[in-house]
């Protein structure tokens, strides 16, 4: 397969590297990319007549200033990490799961339903029940595009986009109809608050859900890199025909990948409901699944890379409210995200600048676009 990264001239003269050099090679490019992006962001902020240093200082304080701020950063990062993992996981099999958003919504509302609907359980049972119930709902929603693709050839990009809209409508209906909070004080569409036994607690201001997400990220890494299933998924992703000839059941892998991807997104929705919002309310989860695509791409679809990407974007979101007080519109964080993504992806520019050789063998995502297994 052609890979743009492999063809740069520095590559030919590469010697075996020490561990330190390899870490530097992996970290330096994204680091410089983020800095350059911040620099461009500073120009935009300055063009609005605001001191960029003051703006960034308040951004930093809002994201990492104290334990409360740091907790908020991790809280924002948590659903992004889950949906980023969901998107990355599907990417490994050459699948474009644009439907993480819908899967996340179903995970969220199912966790809420279990959380407020089932009484009298101890935390040790209620909490995992709601968590895995939500994840399972996401998985079941993820199976639809998987089966449609393998049985009819319907492209998962279309079906997942359509399923997102269907999910928004169904969850809106549930939160405004059968599962609506009917208490006298409530007039909006939302479910009742979930019981204390299904709330994911905080430990010293830090949300426990984030640490769960980290564990899941390492599990995903293990499955992808160390297990037979992961090998089959990666093979099917790189070259489905070769995978088929070597005896891998590609259709089974596609369905399974979509199920697991949906599981991850659904768990993200469940954690957001149980750890942050405390109930399901339409609109509160908006965009989390789409931002998962950004996280996945920024983290180069690597599970551990996803952790850093999610914390970075989480920090931008957490710090933007404090930055707003010095007069910078929070939308600047979207501009920063786009610039970071650009400079991480256009690493040719950065590498020329800091003289780091190209990395090896990152699969090209878009070459599998529109492939029907």
């Amino acid at each position, binding site marked *: 397969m052609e890979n743009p990264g492999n063809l740069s001239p520095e590559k030919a003269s590469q010697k075996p590297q020490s561990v330190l050099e390899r870490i530097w090679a992996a970290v330096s490019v994204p680091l410089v990319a983020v800095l350059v992006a911040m620099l461009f962001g500073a120009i935009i902020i300055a063009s609005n007549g605001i001191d960029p240093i003051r703006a960034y200082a308040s951004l930093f304080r809002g994201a990492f200033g104290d334990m409360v701020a740091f907790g908020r950063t991790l809280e924002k990062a948590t659903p992004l990490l889950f949906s980023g993992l969901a998107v990355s996981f599907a990417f490994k099999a050459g699948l474009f799961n644009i439907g993480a958003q819908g899967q996340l919504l179903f995970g969220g509302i199912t966790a809420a339903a279990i959380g407020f609907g089932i009484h009298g359980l101890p935390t040790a049972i209620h909490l995992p029940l709601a968590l895995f119930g939500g994840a399972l709902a996401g998985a079941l929603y993820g199976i639809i595009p998987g089966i449609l693709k393998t049985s009819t050839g319907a492209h998962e990009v*279309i079906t997942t986009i359509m399923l997102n809209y*269907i999910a928004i409508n*169904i969850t809106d209906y549930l939160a405004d109809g059968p599962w609506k909070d009917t208490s006298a004080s409530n007039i909006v569409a939302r479910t009742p608050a979930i019981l204390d036994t299904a709330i994911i607690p905080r430990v010293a201001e830090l949300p426990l859900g984030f640490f769960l997400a980290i564990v899941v990220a390492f599990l995903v890494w293990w499955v992808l890199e160390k297990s037979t299933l992961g090998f089959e998924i990666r093979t099917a992703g790189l070259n489905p025909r070769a995978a088929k000839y070597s005896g891998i059941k590609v259709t089974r892998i596609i369905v399974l990948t979509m199920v697991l991807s949906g599981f991850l997104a659904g768990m993200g929705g469940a954690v957001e409901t149980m750890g942050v919002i405390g109930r399901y309310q339409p609109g509160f989860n908006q965009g989390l699944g789409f931002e998962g695509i950004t996280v996945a791409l920024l983290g180069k679809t690597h599970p551990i890379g996803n952790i850093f990407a999610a914390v970075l974007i989480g920090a931008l979101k957490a710090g933007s409210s404090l930055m707003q007080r010095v007069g910078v519109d929070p939308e600047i964080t979207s501009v920063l995200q786009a610039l970071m993504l*650009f400079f991480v992806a256009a690493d040719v520019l950065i590498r020329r600048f800091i003289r780091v050789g190209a990395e090896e063998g990152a699969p090209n995502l878009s070459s599998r676009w529109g492939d029907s297994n």
Partner: protein
Amino acid sequence: MNASTRIVEFLKKRRVLTILSAIIVIAIAWSYNNNPVVTQAVLASALRHSTPIVLGALCGLICERSGIVNIGIEGQMLIAAFTSFLVSAFVGNLLLAVLVGILTGMIAGLLLAFMSVTLKVDQIIGGTVINILALGITGFFYQQGLAGGGKLPIIPLGPLADIPLLGRVLFTNPPITYSALILVFLVHFMLFHTRWGLRTRSVGEHPRAADTVGINVFLTRYINVIIAGGIGGLAGAFLSIESVGSFERAMTNGRGFVALAVMIFGKWTPLGAWGAGLLFGLTSAIQTQIQFGGITIPHQFVGMLPYIITIVVLAGFVGRSRPPAAEGVPYEKEG
């Protein structure tokens, strides 16, 4: 082969399409017979619903036919909607506003081409960059309560507008809706009957072979992505100054992604995308009509109708689709 046998052959080959169209035509005729006013309104609204989506799909397919994946349609539409609104608000000239919208889309296209052709950035990332950037920039520079310079007027096409049903639906529209109709056929003709079209398709299917016979792969891709960006920009201008007359944050509301779906649905052909876009527009219009009609089903169930129908038709009738072979792979010159 004479014309009638060719038509019969065509209908045989496209049996599903033929049956589906026949059902829709009969349904429309029946409905018109029962209630001409509502039918007319629904069909006209279907056409307008489909306009930005069809334009977006054309934008996508001109890129993809030359081998460049464009998932940044949403962003191209959004930022063009924004700039054309700004021009309409500050200058007040709607024609200039449309042109600026097109130009903005072309600049976004240039950015996509620069990323995917020159920098060889992964094209999925390139498109995502454009989507987020557009969301950020339009949000950052957006001013609440800015009044626009009005909407593009409806221009009835003389005597054509007096034809029953068709006149009101097809020939009584604002300009961008007309241009979408023209562009569908123009792009079809260009793609399959001109030198540019042949070059585009060869670059999308087998760039190495195209290069060997002297076609400039890079230049072809640049030109296509920029032209496509202009069409995406037109779709954006439709939203802000033809359809609504104002700008809101994230007002594209996923239409760029629906356009992407419609493009694949139409199997990367302009006429296919048009058909798929019309189907989507029709279901959207029917959905709106049902909600106005006061039928007592929860509005969410009606709201998801277009999406369910798209999936059912796709899975049941259309099935597998084949993209251009070289799509998504940056081209490397040998030697």
